[in-house]
């Protein structure tokens, strides 16, 4: 079945931002990701869908090497960002994560002020030379995250005092403040109400113009709304990846069709 998806990928003309080849992930003795090869395009939103436990989050966390923090986790295969293997011996995952930002399932702002939340990344990576530049980065990041108007008068108040949706947008602002090239989102709306979800989805659509966005979601509607390409995972394997429209209207695999129509998973 991998042959099939590789053929599909070959059909796309746009250059791939991320290319994963034969990725295997093991948690101790468990084989969590089996031989996954995908291409993720630049300036597009790619959605990962699939039933719980299919490995889509695990695969997402391979892209910024967050799995490194789990001692029993082992990754094999190759993941390249613009031709550079991120699992190369010379790569420091800390440096990689400045390039590949991440937004988590549960909003997790630092227990610091809104300003400090956004300023933290640029500060530790030395992206700004003075306070004025830092102020500017904070402002543009919050504006990009569509949060500026709501918080501009209370930048010094704690980030944890915001509502759930605002917190998640703050986390997005924090992630884009370091000017990443890729933005990984692990079910970013699962803890949000429908209104906040709509705001975040709108935001994702805007972010697409600057980043390569990868989003893991349990909501078929969300995948259909925000993504241009969708990858279907099942039991640690990639079932197929294609243009979102194709996946939802004319999937090549029965498993995909069963899943998106709610008959399975």
């Amino acid at each position, binding site marked *: 079945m991998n042959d099939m998806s590789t053929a599909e990928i070959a059909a796309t003309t746009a250059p791939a931002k991320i290319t994963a080849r034969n990725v295997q992930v093991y948690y101790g003795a468990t084989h969590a990701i089996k031989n996954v090869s995908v291409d993720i395009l630049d300036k597009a939103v790619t959605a990962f869908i699939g039933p719980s436990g299919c490995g889509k989050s695990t695969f997402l966390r391979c892209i910024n090497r967050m799995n490194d923090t789990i001692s029993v986790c082992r990754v094999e295969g190759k993941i390249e960002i613009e031709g550079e293997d991120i699992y190369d011996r010379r790569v420091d995952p800390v440096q990689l994560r400045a390039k590949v930002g991440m937004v988590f399932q549960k909003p997790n702002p*630092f227990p610091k002020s809104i300003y400090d939340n956004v300023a933290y990344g640029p500060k*530790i990576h030395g992206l700004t030379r003075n306070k004025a530049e830092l102020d500017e980065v904070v402002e543009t990041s919050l504006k990009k995250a569509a949060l500026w108007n709501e918080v501009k008068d209370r930048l010094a108040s704690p980030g944890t005092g915001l509502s759930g949706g605002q917190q998640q947008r703050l986390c997005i602002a924090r992630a884009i403040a370091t000017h990443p090239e890729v933005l990984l989102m692990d079910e970013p709306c699962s803890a949000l109400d429908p209104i906040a979800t709509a705001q975040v989805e709108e935001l994702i659509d805007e972010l697409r113009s600057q980043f390569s966005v990868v989003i893991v979601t349990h909501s078929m509607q969300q995948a259909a709304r925000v993504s241009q390409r969708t990858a279907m995972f099942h039991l640690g394997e990639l079932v197929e990846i294609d243009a979102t429209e194709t996946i939802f209207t004319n999937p090549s695999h029965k498993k995909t069709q069963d899943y998106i129509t709610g008959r399975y998973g």
Partner: protein
Amino acid sequence: MSDIIATGAAVPARPKNSILVEDKLMKKRNAAEARFKAYGIAAIAISLATLAIMLWTIFSDGVSAFRQATLTFPVTLDAAKLDPQGARNPADLVKVTTVGYGTLLTTAFRAHLQEKGVSTEGLDDKAVGDMISKAAPAQLRDSVLANPSLIGTTKDISVYATGRIDGFLKGRVTMQTAERDANVSPEQLQLADRLREAGILKLQFNSGFLTNTDASDQRPEASGLGVAIIGSLYMMALVALMVLPVGVAASIYLEEFAPKNRFTDLIEVNISNLAAVPSIVFGILGLAIFINFAGLPQSSSLVGALVITLMTLPTIIIATRAALRAVPPSIRDAALGVGASKMQTVFHHVLPLAAPGILTGTILGLASALGETAPLLLIGMVAFVANYPAGPLEGGVMDPATALPVQVYSWAARSDPAFIERSSGAIIVLLFFLVVMNAIAILLRRRFERRW
């Protein structure tokens, strides 16, 4: 499905009862709950009663240690006797011993009694002089040597009465006990009564209890906690300086950086075991390593602090690791996600959140170390120390000292009943320090706790 219904035992349907009536099982469950609450309340009541009895005993025995019987009378510091050369030369002044000052005191005392018309009937001159503490001449001599300009003046001074007279004023010594006592006679007690009426003898607040050095069995009235308080303060300061950086660094390494393997597991188990090792074992360790091997001076607060540091480290490490573990992992993810290094994650985000827990754990660890006695006995801090240690900058931590709990122990072991109240008084001082430390722990916790 139908098979199961056919063969399985029939489950009786729940009887249809009014919810206004308590059924049998509900009554039983409620009774069990009520019993459990009663046990809990009883346990707390017993603990509180025990605590109250303990505090009452300590305070009723110990409060009197802060008041001491003193004799107040004028003394003429006769220049002819104290400085025959008249040059106020320190070298000459030292030549007059406490015996000389003693004579001066007793003469002045008797003269004052005569002047006030207090009868010394039935008592010879020596017995009257013996009412004055044996520590008084030395105290007078010290004050004159410190301030030679006093020579030649007449001055009202307050000196301690002997422990027996003090005991008489506090009700510890009576006419009946005095008859069988070689140190005091009933006639002296009668004189004490008359002196009290004349306003010469009275119980006064005794700051010397907090500042004096220890004194021998013959002079319980002059003994104080000065050396013990200094020793305890030196030790606590040194322990805090040593235990906090080492304990916190070890905990952070073990919790955040160390690989999880058999070796670190072994270390972890052993830290827990060390926390349970009896403290006297650490005393023997300190004796062997710090005194016999490293050659550090015995009875010094430095050695005491080293031993207590070793003893407190496991507790601090366990408390610190618990505080670090209580920081939600989502914060670590967030920091790593924006590209913070492991060290930045720990020091920028995890440690500030864990700080209140770490501080509380450390201060409570120090508080329990403050009350530690057994290991200090082994390294010689129970010795009789009559000199104050030097200041902290002059190497005072190397000087012999005692500690508060050790002073409690050594006073409790003395034969003179006057030391019983002093032992309880020392416990009051120790409890005061413990309460202060716990209050600091609470304040720090409030101050650093992030409510957001």
